[in-house]
C-alpha cells in the first residue's frame, strides 16, 4: 500500500487527459503488454519448453529401454528355467532308470547269492554227511575192533588163556558180530552194561 502513497504526488500532478477512464487502454501499457508476452513467449518457446520436452522424451526412452531390458531378462530367465526343468526331468528319468537297473541287478545278485548259498549249503551238508558217514564208518570199525578186543579180553579172562592169536586167525569175533547183526544170536543178559551196550549201539 505504501507505494500508492509514494506514487501519490505523480497522480496528483498528472496532466489532464493522460489519466483515462479505466476501460480505455493506456497506450504505453498496451504496447508493453505485448512486449511482456512476446519476451516470455520467445524464452519459453525457444528454451524452456524444448528443454522440458527433451527431458520428457529422454525419460520416456529410458523407461522404454528399461522395459525392453527387463523383457529380455525375463525371456532369458524363462529360457533358463525351461532348460533347467528339461535337465531336471532328464535327471529324474535317469535316476529312475538307474534305480530300476539297480533293483534288477540287486534282485539278480540276491538270486545268485541265494543259489550260491544254497549250493554251498548243500555242498557243506553233503561233505558233512560224508564226513559223518566216514566218521561213523571209522567209529563202527574202531568199535568193532574194540568190542572184539574187549570181548576177547573178557573171554580170555573167563577162559583163562589168551585167545588173541586164535581170534585173529579164525575171525571168531567178526563172525560172532556178524551173527549178532543178522539176528542169529540173541544176546543173553549177562550184566546190565554189556547187554545195553551191545543191544543199543549195534
Amino acid at each position, binding site marked *: *500500500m*505504501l*507505494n*500508492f*502513497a509514494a*506514487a*501519490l504526488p*505523480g*497522480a*496528483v*500532478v*498528472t*496532466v*489532464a*487527459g*493522460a*489519466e483515462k*477512464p*479505466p*476501460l*480505455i*487502454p*493506456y*497506450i*504505453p*501499457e*498496451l*504496447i*508493453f*503488454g*505485448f512486449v*511482456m*508476452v512476446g*519476451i*516470455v*513467449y520467445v*524464452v*519459453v*518457446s525457444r*528454451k*524452456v*519448453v524444448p*528443454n*522440458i*520436452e*527433451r*527431458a520428457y522424451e*529422454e*525419460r520416456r526412452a*529410458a523407461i522404454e529401454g528399461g522395459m525392453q531390458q527387463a523383457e529380455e531378462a525375463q525371456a532369458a530367465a524363462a529360457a533358463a528355467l525351461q532348460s533347467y526343468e528339461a535337465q531336471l526331468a532328464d535327471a529324474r528319468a535317469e535316476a529312475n532308470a538307474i534305480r530300476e537297473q539297480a533293483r534288477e541287478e540287486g534282485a539278480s545278485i540276491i538270486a545268485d547269492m541265494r543259489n550260491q548259498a544254497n549250493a554251498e549249503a548243500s555242498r557243506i551238508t553233503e561233505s558233512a554227511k560224508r564226513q559223518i558217514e566216514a566218521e561213523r564208518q571209522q567209529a563202527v570199525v574202531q568199535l568193532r575192533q574194540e568190542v572184539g578186543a574187549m570181548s576177547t579180553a573178557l573171554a580170555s579172562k573167563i577162559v583163562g588163556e589168551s585167545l588173541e592169536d586164535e581170534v585173529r586167525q579164525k575171525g571168531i569175533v567178526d563172525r560172532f558180530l556178524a551173527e549178532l547183526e543178522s539176528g542169529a544170536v540173541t544176546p543173553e543178559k549177562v550184566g546190565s552194561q554189556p547187554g545195553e551196550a551191545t543191544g543199543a549201539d549195534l
Partner: protein
Amino acid sequence: MILAYAPQAASLPMVSGDEFVPPGPEIFYLPLIGEGEWAITEQMVWGGVSVVIICTALLMLTRNLSIVPSKSQFLLEGFYNFTRNGIARDMIGSKDFLRFVPLLFSLFTLILLNNWYGVLPPVMNPTYGRIGFAIAATVVVYVVYHWIGFKRYGFTGYFGHMIPEGLPGFIKPVIFPLELITYFITRPLTLALRLFGNMFAGHILIVLFVSAGAYFLTQDVVFKLLAVPTFLMAAIMWLFEALIQALQAYVFTLLSASYIAGALAEEH
C-alpha cells in the same frame, strides 16, 4: 464502479480531515517516470520485473534437467504439466496441443505472477488491473486462434467451420451471425474484460477496506473499534483475492486453449 469515472476526483483514497474518500479508478494510474501520454507507469515497471523473474527462473530451472528429477525439477514439472496436460492437452487434444504449449504456458505464468502482485508485498497491485495489459494478452490469443483457423480451413472454409454441424439448413442463416459475433466480438471482449475486471475490482476492494480502516483510526473511539473488523475484512479479502487471481490466470489460459481448440476442431 468501473464506469463511475470522475475526472475531477484525481486523488487517492486518503484521510483528509473528516471526509472519507473511497478509492476510485484513479488509484490505478501510477506514472513513475515521466508524465503525460507516455509516462512509464508503476505497473509497466513491475510487469518488466515479472518478465525478468519468469525468464530467469525458468531458464535456471530447465538448464540441467535430468531423467530422474530433483525436487525443484519435480515441482517445475508439476507446474509445467498443469498447463501442458491439464489445460493444453485436455482442451486441444493430444494431436495438436504441443505447439500451443509455449504460448499457453507463457500466458499462464505471466498472468499468474502479475495477478499475484495484487497480494504480494511490496507490489500490492495486480498488473492486469490496467486494461492495456489485458487487451494485449487477449489480442495475442485472438490473432493466434483466428490465424490457425484460417490456415487450416481457408478463408471461406473457416467461416463455414463456425457453424455447428448437423443443423437444419434454415437455421444456419440465423446461427451464422451469432457465431460470427461470438468468434470476433464476444470472445475477445469477455476474455479481456474478465481478467481486467476481476483484478480491478479485487484491488479496489482491498484498498477500500485498508483505507477505511486507516480512516476509522483517525476518528472517535467507537470508530477506532470499527477499524478492527475492517482490517480483518481486508485480510480475508487478501486471501480471497489470492485465490481469485490464481483462478483468473487459469481461466484465461483455459479459455485461450478452448478458443484455439474451437478453431482447430474437426467438428464442434
